[in-house]
């Protein structure tokens, strides 16, 4: 589904991604972990074209990502941010319908019908006409997920989707991701929620200094990390 080979990204002189290889099979839930500043966000942003790599290649659904098709492929890869980034001047419903209408030229009726389905999927039926500022953090993040889903993406990318939430609100967002996983959605999640990683992720990829230092089935990597840097990182997470 997503295939990355030899991905390199520099900011100024700093190498932030230093030759990343990554395979995300269809329907998988891949957790991306690693210490702060190791390049997790940058990798996600490259995957949906928000950043342009300096070299290497990215294939989405068999199509090679390049300047010509970045905008179109973005519609196929949903992105969810730590700070939700809902459009505060639009109702929840019109947050969801904007991109389908403007980018895909859907009719209002079609876009709204799709949007209601997406809201139902994240448990927000009945919140259509609310302003984003009137929702709780967890509701906002679920609305943001629904907004990405409304574009009918083939994969979803999450950059620390629960880090800005009150602890009691984290579960409802993770539940949505579990539910999507059960429905066969391909997902890549940057997260520090180790319990979620252990329970829900198929694969864990550990990044450090812009390189993949270890990857494998979640249970194995978390239980018996082979790389010293992974052990360090996991140790720091427990502390």
């Amino acid at each position: 589904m997503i295939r990355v080979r030899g991905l390199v990204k520099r900011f100024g002189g700093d190498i932030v991604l230093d030759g990343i290889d990554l395979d995300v099979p269809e329907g998988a839930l891949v957790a991306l972990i690693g210490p702060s500043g190791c390049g997790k966000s940058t990798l996600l942003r490259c995957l949906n074209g928000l950043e342009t790599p300096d070299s290497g290649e990215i294939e989405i659904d068999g199509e090679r990502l390049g300047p010509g098709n970045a905008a179109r492929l973005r519609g196929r890869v949903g992105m969810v941010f730590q700070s939700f980034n809902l459009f505060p001047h639009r109702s929840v419903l019109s947050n969801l319908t904007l991109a389908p209408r403007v980018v895909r030229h859907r009719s209002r009726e079609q876009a709204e019908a799709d949007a209601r389905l997406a809201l139902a999927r994240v448990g927000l039926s009945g919140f259509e006409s609310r302003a984003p500022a009137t929702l709780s953090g967890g509701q906002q993040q679920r609305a943001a997920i629904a907004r990405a889903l409304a574009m009918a993406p083939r994969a979803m990318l999450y950059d620390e989707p629960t880090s800005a939430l009150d602890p009691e609100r984290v579960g409802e967002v993770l539940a949505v991701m579990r539910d999507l996983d059960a429905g066969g959605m391909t997902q890549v999640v940057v997260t520090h929620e180790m319990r979620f990683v252990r329970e829900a992720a198929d694969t864990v990829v550990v990044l450090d200094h812009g390189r993949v230092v270890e990857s494998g089935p979640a249970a194995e990597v978390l239980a018996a990390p082979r790389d010293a840097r992974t052990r360090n990182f996991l140790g720091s997470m427990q502390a």
Partner: protein
Amino acid sequence: MRRLLAALLLLASGLQAARAGEPVAQPTLRWAGDARSGAPYEFHDPSDPSRLIGYEVEIAEEVARRLHRRPEFVQNEFDGLIPGLQAGQYDIAMDGLEITPEHEGAVAFSTPYYTTWEQLVVRRSDPRDSLAALAHGRVGTLRGTTANRILEAFAAEHPGFDIRLYDEEFDAYTDLRHGRLDGVLLDAPIARYYAGVDPALALVGPPVAPISYGIALRKTDTALRNRIDEALAAMRDDGTLARILARWNLLPEGQSVPGVAPVMWQHWVATTAPVSGWRARLHRYAQFLPMILRGAWMTLLVSVLGMAVAVVVGLPLALLRRYAVAPFAALATAFIELVRGTPLLVQILFIFYGLPELGIQLNPLAAGVIALGLNYAAYEAENYRAGLEAVPRGQAEAAAALGLSPMQGLRYVVVPQALRTVLPVMTNDFISLLKDSSLVSVITLTELSQTYEQLSTTYFDYLGPGAMVAAAYLLLGLPFVRLARFAERRLARQSGIVSARH
């Protein structure tokens, strides 16, 4: 926005189109003068300030009638009369304009319609009753008049002589009354109307210098000039001119027209006598209301249209500055710096009087709206910029992540949010614009501040009209003050500040 632009374009094509479209058989004769404290030339009737009267008004209307044209008065500052004529804002100018070699360098004149002299006025208690007797005194006059030049020549020969220059004749006579001056030298009709009614002042000495008033025209308008000369000659021959002058008590000493009383002079004496008592004062103020309403309407019209231009032009300026490639961004920056670095008054004068030299002729309303609009556009652009910067980066990213192009992201996500943050600031700017709009009075628009000048100089009363005009400005601004508060509250609610209270 689009509808606003269309309305503005219409406005720019303005009066010309409107006039062309009118099914009026008679073309207009646009004549200009300065009606502020302009007795007996052209001024607002003290008993009904919305009515323009004066012996020149009667002459102009009679000339227009004989030319089969409809007279239309254009108010302009005295100093701006000749520039406005050259800029093509009106056909002729009349305001006691003296036929002098200096003036004739700039404009053409009809034959004289009135001949008079410079008249010295002193305090009645002062025995010095001639210019020669005041050789060590202090004498005032209006700036740029023949009297001004006479006094300068006199001062060159008398080292102890002191000249004081004024913009309003009323102020000169007031200073004479209060002892700040020893004499005032001005055209005899002015002396008669402003000093002659004051028992404390006396018109003294022989006529100082003869002067002739002519109707000023553009030098190229020779056909019009010939027709006006014919009309004036006919008015002289059939006695019309003498009758007008007789009504205004302006005939030379010893002359009279049988059966014509100096009614307008008597009207002036009666109406400018100081009113006493509250009732009389309130009654007078009530008469100001229609003029103040008209001034307020003009202020509101210029301000609203000017703000519309500012709001519409400011946004592309801000977007160019922030997002466009270097040369366009630099152009936008240059425009903003130019506008913010030069006085608004200069910009207004430049657009109204300067642009016609480049072939761009604007009617006063369009010129005022464009000048105010472009000036405020520069400030609004800065507001928009602050508003755009206040939208979190994540918003444009979220739009991009959904597949919106950068332009779509601006249009649907970033700009609408920026607009909301700038709305309160803009509303406050509108209130400043409302006040700055007083500057368009220099280009013949009779708005509130101009109305104030007209009323106060007609009645020598700055207090009552001042309070009324101040009230009018406040009332005009009030709805926008409330709008600003409302916008601020809504903005606060939206960004969650208010909802946090629940």
